[in-house]
């Protein structure tokens, strides 16, 4: 019990004094998670829309597979990217292994199914009369897609929030792809895992509090946007 209270005090101290290492780790975490959510949104919201707006054989199956991949274990993603990016892998020549870029790639793969799947359900949730109205008002196919996405924007934002939360909180892929290199690829989650195993409970707790606060702040911001 004492340990936890001491940890909390130490944690607050580290945060308030703007400990340079804590700041570094936090900023890198933010950079990686924001980069991956932006990339994922740009690619996979349109992908989800494409799947939703087109009829093709095996569509039902594809959606089932995407939904199954919501539960994709982070270590499996780590392993996959490890095989691709490691020096001996097919993409080894890119030199992304043990770099923040590699970690972003891992997070994108991890978040992609959630973003795609939730985008599809967001669009399916748009009322049929709304969709008819859009077409009836003279929209071209492309205009109709944009208008439907606009109508589903709150639900799509929920997909972004879910994706971001999964990205910022995962540890398996970040550890395997980034390697937890101090000052280079060490993020909040990998730092917590390491510091805890080394017995630096206070430091771990401080990082944990920061991680939760980040998730909280981003959620508040996105919720604000959603309620407008």
């Amino acid at each position, binding site marked *: 019990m004492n340990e936890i209270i001491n940890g909390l005090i130490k944690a607050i101290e580290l945060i308030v004094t703007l400990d340079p290492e804590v700041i570094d780790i936090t900023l890198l975490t933010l950079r990686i998670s924001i980069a991956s959510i932006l990339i994922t949104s740009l690619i996979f919201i349109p992908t989800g829309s494409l799947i939703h707006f087109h009829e093709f054989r095996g569509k039902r199956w594809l959606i089932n597979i995407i939904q199954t991949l919501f539960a994709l274990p982070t270590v499996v993603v780590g392993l996959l990217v490890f095989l691709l990016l490691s020096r001996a892998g097919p993409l080894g020549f890119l030199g992304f292994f043990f770099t923040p870029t590699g970690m972003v790639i891992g997070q994108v793969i991890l978040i992609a199914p959630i973003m795609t799947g939730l985008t599809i359900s967001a669009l399916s949730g748009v*009322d049929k*009369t*709304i969709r*008819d*109205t*859009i*077409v*009836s*008002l*003279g*929209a*071209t196919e492309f*205009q109709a897609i944009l*208008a439907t996405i*606009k*109508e589903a*924007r*709150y639900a799509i934002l929920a997909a972004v929030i879910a994706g971001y939360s999964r990205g910022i909180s995962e540890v398996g892929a970040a550890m395997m792809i980034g390697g937890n290199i101090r000052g280079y690829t060490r993020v909040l989650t990998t730092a917590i895992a390491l510091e805890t195993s080394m017995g630096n409970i206070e430091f771990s707790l401080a990082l944990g509090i920061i991680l939760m606060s980040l998730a909280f702040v981003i959620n508040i911001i996105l919720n604000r946007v959603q309620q407008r």
Partner: protein
Amino acid sequence: MIEVKRLSKRYGEKEILKDVNLTIERGEIFTIIGPTGSGKTTLLRLIDLLDRPTSGDILFNGIDANASSKRRRETRRKMSMLFQKPALFKTGVYENVTYGLKFRGIDRHSIDEKVKHALDTVGLFDYAKRIAPTLSGGEAQRVALARAIVTEPEVLLLDEPTANLDPIATEKIEELIVHINREYRTTIIMATHDRIQGQRLADRIAVMMSGEIVQVGQPHEIFYSPKNREIARFVGVENIVPSVVESNDGGLAVVNIFGSNITVISTLKAGEGVLVCIRPEDIMISRETGKSSVRNVLKVKISKIVPLGPLVRVKTENSLVALITRQAAEDLQLNAGDEVYAKFKATSVHLACG
């Protein structure tokens, strides 16, 4: 302006529309009445080119509207459709009305002018800044109407636009429909299951039953000369009695109902089997035979009297139904079991082919 030719639509095994043929004239209010599930919505959706027919054509100003997707969109942009649900977009009232104009690439300045004019037309100019979900059902439907007319459509399609509204909101929408038709010469095609609404607004009416157009005509033709028993029942003819024409002397036919001969205006010849149709509001109830211009008098015994607001429904033992005013019923002091006279004019009776 719009010609519907041999239009059919089936979903799987189910045939929703069967060989529908219609011609709609520019500037008229054309209502399609019929029971729920008779195919009215399906027909409107096909005319608005939202769905494709299984077979048959839709000609818009003589041109095949389904010829290509480009033609479908171009034609669709000359029309607007108002659905049973207002289906407003999750945004402001003003923004809602802009959609159709934005799809057409209209410049900002004209959009502003047109949107304000359309909101003014439906009486919601002051609502421009409101958010759609804060509106009442009637207001929401008026915004949807503004959104539909802002593009100045040649044809306005209305699918049960007042089915979910209270009587006051309904009246407002009906006023607007007539106003839009008169002011902008917009051709209006409206589907409704409410036959009275159909009659109130229409220049012409089509009756739809089980996916078929069974009769088209002016309101008085539909309501006073229904073609068959089903149409007669749907348009409120409660007295339908099978009989045979006894004689016809220069358009004045005699038929026998309930043991009495009655005179009817008809061209049907002696010997033809007919259905004698009389609207309940066209039957008068009286204590004496009297001497009046009314040609047909039947002696009847009242079996049941049911008050219906300002009217009273009188049913006789031989199942004749009359609708008279409450005042008339009180003056006559009618009671079940009374023997009275039912009177109706020769012109109030319609003979449908039996």
